[in-house]
């Protein structure tokens, strides 16, 4: 009997794909672009180059998902976000590697950023059934009416994911995305073009967290293609421009806001490019994409 020979084993590479409507399609363009190690510049993976058409498909999916997600109980939404935190925790090592490569960090420095992303999901999971209690109001009108204001989700939110700042690639993405969906909105995200891998992998976490398909849609590719499509799309209700970095051109805040004005989208303006995403979030983002509905009920016998 001879010893078994040690054969060379090849790693199985992952084909990174978009996340649209709960599925993982390639870009309709069939195109990919090279994603490289932030520090060494070495090739890491081919990411799909999402197009305007991919973005429009994602908006359709987000619109279709809005009725169910906004109508789900707040408790249910909270459980699903908590489930996403569990799934992210379970893939901690994978994300540490992806964040380290995306942001040019050591694994040791990337680890707390992944942990913080898990914790941020937990933070927002706990908010789902409390936000109406801090954003709503019983209004003492001068008449025989029961008058109640309650927050409701704005609708489909187009998100430009953070492209810079400490922890942007995963923690930053989770920090902008979680409050949008925690409050019942659905989202189409333009991922950071230079560091899309943690975001594309996040789709795999969300897909295994009972999140209904279409609630979150993740598109990698050129921000100049994706963001203007979101800004001008009549079925998008709001824009989160947190990750906008361009000073001019079609992906600048000015251009995107100008396009958004056509349908009076609510706009959250860009975050500072050097923002530290480990900063405690507070309630600002949670309260941004909400509409206040006030209902008057007569009182009488």
């Amino acid at each position, binding site marked *: 009997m001879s010893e078994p020979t040690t054969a060379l084993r090849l790693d199985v590479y992952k084909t990174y794909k978009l996340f649209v409507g709960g599925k993982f399609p390639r870009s309709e363009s069939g195109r990919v672009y090279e994603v490289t190690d932030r520090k060494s510049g070495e090739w890491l993976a081919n990411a799909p180059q999402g197009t305007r058409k991919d973005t429009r498909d994602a908006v359709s999916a987000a619109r279709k998902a809005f009725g169910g997600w906004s109508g789900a109980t707040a408790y249910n939404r909270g459980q699903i976000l908590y489930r996403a935190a569990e799934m992210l925790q379970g893939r901690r090592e994978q994300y540490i590697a992806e964040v380290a490569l995306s942001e040019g960090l050591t694994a040791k420095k990337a680890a707390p950023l992944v942990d913080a992303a898990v914790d941020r999901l937990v933070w927002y999971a706990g908010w789902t059934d409390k936000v109406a209690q*801090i954003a709503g*109001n019983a*209004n*003492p*009108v*001068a*008449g025989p*009416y029961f*008058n109640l*204001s309650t927050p409701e989700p*704005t609708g489909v939110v187009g998100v430009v994911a953070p492209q810079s700042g400490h922890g942007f690639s995963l923690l930053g993405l989770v920090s902008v995305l979680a409050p949008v969906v925690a409050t019942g909105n659905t989202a189409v995200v333009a991922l950071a073009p230079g560091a899309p891998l943690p975001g594309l992998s996040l789709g795999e976490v969300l897909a295994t967290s009972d999140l209904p398909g279409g609630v979150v849609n993740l598109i990698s590719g050129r921000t100049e293609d994706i963001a203007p499509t979101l800004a001008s799309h009549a079925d998008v*209700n709001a824009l989160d421009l947190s990750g906008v970095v361009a000073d001019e051109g079609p992906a*600048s*805040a*000015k*251009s*995107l*806001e*100008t396009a*958004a*004005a*056509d*349908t*009076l989208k*609510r706009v959250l*303006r860009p975050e500072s490019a050097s923002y530290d995403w480990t900063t405690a979030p507070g309630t*600002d983002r949670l309260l941004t994409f909400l*509409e*206040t*509905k*006030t*209902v*008057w*009920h*007569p009182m009488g016998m």
Partner: protein
Amino acid sequence: MALFDYAPAPESRAAAGDIASTYGHFIDGEFVESTGSEALKTIDPSTEEVLAEFAQGTEADVDRAVAAARKAFTSWSALPGAERGKYLFRIARIIQERSRELAVLESIDNGKPIKETRDVDLPLVAAHFFYYAGWADKLEFAGYGSNPRPVGVAAQVIPWNFPLLMLAWKIAPALATGNTVVLKPAETTPLTALRFAEICRQAGLPKGVVNIITGDGRTGAALTAHPEIDKVAFTGSTEVGRAIARTLAGTTKRLSLELGGKAANIVFDDAPIDQAVEGIVDGIFFNQGHVCCAGSRLLVQESVHDDVMDALKRRMSTLRVGDPLDKNTDIGAINSAAQLARIQELTAAGEAEGAERWSPACELPSAGYWFAPTVFSNVSATHRIAREEIFGPVLSVLTFRTPEEAVAKANNTPYGLSAGIWTEKGSRILWMASKLRAGVVWSNTFNKFDPTSPFGGYKESGYGREGGRHGLEAYLDV
């Protein structure tokens, strides 16, 4: 022929006080002449008589007003909240004292019935100042952080349909939170805003905290585009709202918008019909239908359509159209020739597209701008009168069979300001209210307003809320 005729019961025009022949702006606590020579005229729309001339504000005028507001901001924002609040309480009290004068002046300048200015506009104006006065020293408890700060200088542009009430909605929360303002009233209704400037002086309000400049859209465009302002608050058409949003794109300036609407007023077959008809009439004929949240689309359940239409027509036949100063008048004058032309154009389109038009027999005065209360039946969702804001006393009637269909039809509009629901079934009210994409929902009532109650729209009806605790946010740096 009515069972009883009404004798005329006119309110005295003299109660409006002296109307000057010409007005300038109110800047830095003084009434000043415009740097330009162009003057506009404001008329009584019920007679077309010229009431006064007023200045078309120039860019130089806007500069002066913004500079005055900027200068005043430092000390006004540093004033203890309790003291700011006391100025607002004073203003609220003076408005109450002078409410008859202001109500008559508003009726004359706007054309709306004295019954409404006296019983709705003016009480709400005073209440709004009283409400926000009390917030001025309690802002740290409003849920916007422990140290909420004012935004700075607010540019405020208001419409002609509720001139003094919209002024109150803009100025009261802005001042309570420590901002200073430059406000431009609409070019057809500047008089009550200019009279309000006198009230600011009586209240001893520090100079420059409130500045009022008059003029048309050119003045408004100069004001909202001014580099030294920190915030724009606008109430008016969706088209102008879009233009302002484009102007502010890429800046750090804040914006709140309260724009158009095409509200559905939904009547189910179990609703008490007489009560619903009162709500329908109030919803569309209040203030000549010059109301952004007017219930301009009546959605009535098919099984009661004929009954509702009969009762509605009977009720419409009793509406009294005419002299705004007559205390019996239900429907006053259309605010301007331009607005009348718009209403005429859209109603003509309604007929041309095949809807069935009906108005009660109703004698309209020969001078002035008038439009008889009008209802269109057999309206389809694609008709212009079902989609476009008419902003006049014109109701479009559509039908539905199921609650789901009612929701789908109600939400089938780019607007989302208000909606009404008429049914006896409580659980259905709550279900409907949760499905309607509108900022204000009235169940078994309509067109109710209160300073404590947030008002504002979804979708293309704008963003931000006015009124209530929520109304503070637009003026706080949160």
